[in-house]
């Protein structure tokens, strides 16, 4: 049984429009999956719905995390159970420093792990961990005392997302278009981060439009996502086929016509 199991997942917007139309996917620890699809295929919707965004309704299907359904849980509980989403467009929280945000988030996860008892991370330990992670992910020190994502460049935001991933130690990390808007150096750093973290403790689901990031993060499984469905799954070679053939080749006949 994989750590994350998605069964026949259907997701609709509040107005009832169905965006994700039946997805089956299993992501286990120590696995790297890539979901590749064109713009508007519903990739980001899938990511948001997995994390529990209130605007997306799961109309059918099941999401199991470590064997337990999380469909009814809010985002905070999903996070506490080990799910993480690196956002395509992380939001700014003015007035809250990266450091104080990270400490609160770490403590929220620790509290959940301790069965609801406060178990704050000792200041020294926190400091050591955050500094080490920033060093590894080449996040400039000054970012730690700036307000979260407030006035950050695209690259800074993405790096801080990966920094959060490293510190919160999720079981399954979903990366939503993390490669977009990154220059090559930033892309390499982010990709290295993912490669380092995927282990027997974590699996990753990389959602992307381009094949570019897959030059740095070699996926174990590639899924082609078109029209709200996974239309084909395979190994890393599938990504290369996409590179040459484009998404056209994978579209069902009626959508090609449209």
């Amino acid at each position, binding site marked *: 049984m994989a750590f994350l199991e998605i069964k026949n997942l259907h997701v609709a917007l509040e107005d009832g429009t169905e965006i994700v139309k039946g997805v089956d996917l299993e992501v286990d620890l120590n696995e790297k999956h890539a979901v590749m699809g064109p713009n508007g295929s519903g990739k980001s919707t899938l990511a948001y719905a997995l994390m529990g965004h209130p*605007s997306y309704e799961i109309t059918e299907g099941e999401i199991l995390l470590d064997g337990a359904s999380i469909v009814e849980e809010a985002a*905070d509980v999903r*996070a506490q159970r080990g799910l*993480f989403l690196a956002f395509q467009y992380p939001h700014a929280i*003015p*007035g*809250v420093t990266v450091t104080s945000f990270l400490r609160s*988030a770490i403590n929220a*996860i620790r509290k959940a792990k301790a069965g609801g008892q406060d178990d704050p991370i000792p200041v020294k330990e926190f400091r050591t961990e955050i500094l080490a992670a920033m060093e590894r992910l080449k996040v400039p020190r000054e970012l730690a005392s700036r307000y979260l994502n407030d006035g950050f460049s695209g690259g800074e935001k993405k790096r801080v997302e990966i920094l959060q991933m490293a510190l919160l130690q999720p079981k399954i990390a979903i990366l939503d278009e993390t490669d977009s808007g990154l220059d090559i150096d930033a892309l390499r750093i982010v990709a290295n981060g993912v490669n380092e973290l995927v282990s027997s403790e974590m699996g990753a689901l990389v959602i992307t439009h381009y094949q570019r990031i897959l030059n740095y993060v070699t996926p174990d499984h590639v899924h082609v996502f078109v029209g709200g469905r996974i239309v084909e799954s395979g190994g890393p070679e599938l990504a290369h086929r996409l590179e040459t053939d484009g998404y056209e080749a994978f579209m069902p006949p009626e959508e090609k016509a449209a």
Partner: protein
Amino acid sequence: MSETEIVRGIRDEYQFGFKNSDEAENYFFKSGRGVSHEVVEAIAEHKQEPDWMRKFRHRSLDYFLARPLPTWGGNVAEIDFDNIYYYIKPTEKQAKNWEDLPADILDTWDKLGIPEAEKKYLAGVGAQYESEVVYHKLQADLEAKGVLFLDMDTALREHEDIVKQYIGTIIPQNDNKFAALNSAVWSGGSFIYVPPGVKIELPLQAYFRINAENMGQFERTLIIVDEDAYVHYVEGCHLAGSMVRVRDGEKSIEEIEVGDEVLTHHGRFRRVRDTMQRRFEGPIFRITFAGEGYRSLAVTPRHPFLVASRELPREHNRWFVPEWKEAWELGLGDYLAVPASIDLEQDAPTVAGQEVLVGRGRHAAVAERVDVELTRDMCRVMGLYVAEGSVSANTSYLSFDSATHEEHLRELVEDVIEGAFGLETWTYAYDNREGRSVRLSSARAARFFAQTFGRTTDELRVPDWLFALDDEDRAAFVRGLYDGEGSYDALLNLHRINQTNREVAQRLRELLLSLGIRASLSRTERAAPRRPMWQLAICEADNPLFERRVLAYASTGTGPKKADVVIADGYCWMPIRSVEKIQANCKVYNLSVEEDESYVCEGVISHNCTAPIYSSDSLHSAVVEIVVKPRGRCRYTTIQNWSNNVFNLVTKRAVAYEDATMEWVDGNLGSKLTMKYPAIWLMGERAHGEVLSIAFAGKGQHQDAGGKVVHVAPKTTSVITSKSISKNGGRAGYRGLLEVAKGAVGAKSKVVCDALILDEESRSDTYPYIRVDENDVDLGHEATVSKIGEEQLFYLMSRGLSESEASAMIVSGFVEPITKELPLEYAVEMNRLIQLQMEGSVG
């Protein structure tokens, strides 16, 4: 005045203050409700103020009476000016040492890390307690520098010339209706004078609180920062709180609802007007006492109890002089009290009535009234029912158990029950055990007893109307109970009554007390599944009385004369056995009670907590006047968290001369309506003014806050930053006035006002008025209104933060530009208050 008179005086007027001795001059002074020239005269008279201040007050009152209520801002029409006490002087004297401060203030400071900070940061501390500064401390070096930090009353006495020179000059007494009111009735407040060139790097602090219901606080603050001097003044305000004997029993305090009737210190029942709960973190006092050894009171330090202190053995025979003392002050040697008798304020009933449902064969049951005449013997049989009676599960028959030899009891029951219900009883002999029972097959009788006293052991109860019976009838009831469950231990010369129902045992003890018989109640654990046994032991000293009055036989026994527990002046006084201080982080509760302002909780009388719980709206109308002379600098910081029914209408104004700097930092939480616009008049060239304000409006609250800057001189600069947050239907607004007078060439000003609205019901308003009479100026104004975005919340929640944690984080980020200006402990406090507001546990 004789001691008896003192006792009576306290019982009648205790709610006006915490009297602490029988010296006449310590008597509190309190004006009547409403304001008039007589009240103003009385205040001036009481304070023995100079004639010019007396005139100042009277003139101010004329202005107040003449001015209409403002029609802008918030709704002030609800203030009932006639229902407010304008002056209360507590008996507490000014505390001189840190240790003398009330414990919950200390605890709050403790929580915020202030005591440690004191050594390093605090220059002096003043606290306002019921209109009067009770504590002032000024570090020696400051004193040596010539800094004056006094309460206003003392300042008026000792530095009359300075006060006279400045008071009412910054804010004229007819400036506005509320400033006029304050000028007429002011009391308390702080006076600070910083001599030329003196820099106070350390903030001065004062804590303010409103304590008494319906009492407006009209403090007056005057700060004069002389040339080249600097001062930072910080002010704060807090809530405190605590934990009941209701009609016919006890109820846990968290279940008490408005309208429930509770027993008060007058031994009567009064309705609960308001309930309150809050989170409390800090020391809690656990107190045990004689008489009911199983109980332990657990209360917050400031919870007041009715107490008598007898520290010296030789005082043993003195009268008990009751006073209200707070938990932290209590110790061995103090006696807690419970009313010795309960006055139901009704005539002794002659019948006990009960509507019972009685079936009529195949037809639906109908309600029928059963009235039972309360003869003395019936009272005794009722007592016996509570001890040995029962009603069958289908409520078809009534039964009284008795030991085989208790023929006399069976005869009594037969007579009384047959007489009352007009039916014949029958006697049932048990096959498998000793004893007989007298039974009556009557649904009316069975249901009457079941409904009046309960059917099963768990349900058993002793209704309060018994307390309205005359002494003999009450004694008869107790006798019936003793007939069933009492015993006499000849070896110990001890009468005991055992009960498995706690409430019955407690009522029984109260009944005994009402007969002047002391009894102690204890709890004995028994092996499961048996439940604890409640044992009532008659105080040995009262054996003769008990035997004569209750058991109705001429007692020959004599007990010891002395006993721990004493009945005097209508109270039963019980010595404290232990006081323990424990750390707690929990919810605490308190009640406010109509008229008597007290309630019996855990078997002892406690006052409504001094934490503000107001049934009616209270008014806080302060005036703060500040003069900053050339090159001087002053920062005045206030964080206020008023109770939700306080009208907080404060006039704050400063004038800043050449090259001087004035900064207002103002945090407003709580209150029903706050109207506060700290003002700065920039009178000298290059003077600089800053107003930073935060307003948080929750449910039912309206915060109308802002700032006002008037540029009079050239090259003056100012910044107004306002942050308002509204939640749960609250209304927060910015109202600002920026004025540039003709000739203020080169003035520069920037106004930033941001509003954050947390939900659809809440509201934010912005009223930025700008009046400019000079061309060469540079003004900027920015206003933003934002809502907490679903996306921001989702982002934070996806990192594991709960929704309320996430919202609190967004809000504290929003106000961060202001909190970062606060001294550390205030920033911590501000964030904590915001968190509490976000959790909804405040108000």
